[in-house]
């Protein structure tokens, strides 16, 4: 598309090198006005908040306990050293969530009466794992399954390897179980969001159910589900910190350990900064993609 990002965007698409119309002029003025109001409003709001916080009676305490510069300098590099653990757990988990979530969604979408058990399974599965707090799932899977004592020793699959009972194995599995329930629902809503006439058209052309799904429904659904999926993965990036309950030392666990030893909460602020540095670019990416998607699918903006 040759759509430029500027003012022409909202008028009729790509009128090449057209002189700005009166409407364009008006729109530009409106935007400028909106921007200056936004600046004033922002300054006023933050000014008031800053005044309120810094003049509160406990502010000096908050400063030493939560925003202690010396502790921050000392703890930040130490905590940052564990960032890789969070990123690695995320990368190991995300692909399996996509696959398993898709599988559950497809199970739920079957129409053949013989496959009713699959549909029932998918419905119960999503109800269950969306209903149980993730942290409980992690606790129960991470400590409970190894407790069965079914598996001993080590495993090696491709480049993965480790102890069968390792929290590094069961922690991510618990996350996959829980998150794929959400992701399956996202997929399902995407699939069901494809208009019934598309299916009808495909079937009338002689495609089977599975062919219809593969060639007509899924490709259209996939595009719709990307923004909500990215949202879920953003949330996953933070939720890997929950695996610390299984003993895994990552950013959050390292920060709370230092907090417990020193009685100072600054390491938690450092951990928050680290997570923000990780998730803000991801959030921007999701926003950018969502906007692009909206423009592409022809949704218009109201000023």
């Amino acid at each position: 598309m040759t759509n430029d990002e500027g003012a022409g965007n909202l008028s009729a698409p790509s009128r090449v090198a057209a002189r700005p119309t009166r409407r364009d002029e008006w729109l530009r003025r409106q935007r400028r006005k909106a921007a200056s109001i936004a600046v004033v409003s922002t300054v006023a709001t933050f000014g008031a908040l800053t005044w309120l916080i810094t003049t509160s009676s406990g502010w000096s305490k908050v400063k030493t306990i939560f925003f202690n510069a010396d502790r921050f300098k000392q703890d930040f590099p130490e905590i940052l050293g564990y960032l890789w653990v969070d990123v690695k757990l995320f990368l190991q988990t995300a692909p399996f969530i996509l696959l398993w979530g898709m599988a559950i969604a497809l199970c739920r979408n079957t129409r053949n009466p013989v496959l009713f058990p699959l549909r029932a399974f998918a419905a119960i599965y999503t109800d269950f794992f969306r209903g149980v707090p993730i942290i409980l799932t992690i606790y129960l899977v991470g400590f409970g399954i190894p407790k069965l004592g079914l598996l001993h020793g080590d495993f090696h699959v491709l480049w993965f390897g480790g102890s069968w009972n390792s929290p590094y194995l069961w922690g991510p599995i618990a996350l996959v179980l829980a998150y794929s329930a959400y992701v399956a629902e996202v997929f399902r809503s995407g699939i069901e969001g494809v208009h019934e006439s598309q299916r009808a058209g495909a079937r009338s052309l002689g495609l089977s159910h599975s062919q219809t799904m593969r060639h007509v429904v899924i490709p259209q659904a996939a595009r719709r589900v990307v923004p909500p999926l990215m949202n879920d993965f953003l949330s996953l990036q933070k939720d890997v910190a929950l695996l610390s309950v299984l003993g895994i030392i990552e950013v959050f666990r390292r920060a709370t350990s230092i907090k417990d030893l020193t009685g100072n909460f600054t390491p938690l602020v450092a951990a928050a900064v680290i997570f923000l540095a990780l998730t803000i670019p991801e959030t921007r990416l999701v926003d950018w993609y969502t906007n692009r998607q909206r423009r592409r699918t022809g949704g218009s903006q109201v000023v």
Partner: protein
Amino acid sequence: MKRQIFATAAMAGLLLAACGDDSTTSSDTTPAAESTAAPADTVAAAVGTDAAACAAGKTLAADSLTIATGDPAFPPYVIDDKPESGEGFESAVALAVAKELGFEGDAVKWVRTSFDTAVAGSDSNNDFNLQQFTINDDRKLVVSFSDPYYTANQAVLGYVDGPGKDVTKLSDLKSLRLGAAAGTTSLQFILDVIKPDAEPFAFNSNADAKTALDNDQIDAIVTDLPTGLYISAVEIEGTKVFGQFPIDAGGAGDQWGLLLSKDNPLTECTNIALANLTASGELAAITDKWMGEWTQAPTLSKD
């Protein structure tokens, strides 16, 4: 005479200084800080190293010393729940202190109190109480403590036939999967001193660490010796404390002191008694005998 006092004081100072980070708060409350009446050297000049002279007239009953302990008292602190026998760590420490204070044999009376009423400062039936009372600032608001008679070492615990059974030195632990409760000196000890090859684990609590040990998710738990002894004796069958780390390896844990009623003048006398026992090596001998040999938790060598 005077030089001996200085030597004693210096020894006590060294002992405290050797106790690592945690002790900085409690070493502020050396006898000089606790005795509100007179500067330390005046006291020393008046009574010399004679704790008995100091104690004269300061006990509940003039001709006897009343010592309290828990009900029941248990090994290795008191053997067979008979504190008067001198068998067991705290029993031996108490009798040694009593002797320094000038009380022996029938002049030492024992009473029992609960842990909770003692730390709440609501007991008045004894001269001092000992049942593993950790010295801390909160408790000091309502009771007084002597200088520490024990500083808990870090120790390593696992199944009798587990991978840790042959450890004799600190470096033997590098290859083990180690776990500790998060936010404890034990975790810091693993990260800073042991520096294991495999990722260590930090659990929410000792209960989680025990589950992980039972699940074969970790090979050994690092905890302070008293907790380790309790876990192996009471909580998980088939485990034992493989060894304790020398105090100069770092990671010193809780310090225990004799508990006295708030601002009891006898406090400074017990400090003199403990300093004498430290200087003569008797306290170290008692500690080795009951917290080392008796518990069969050998001190691991440092390299």
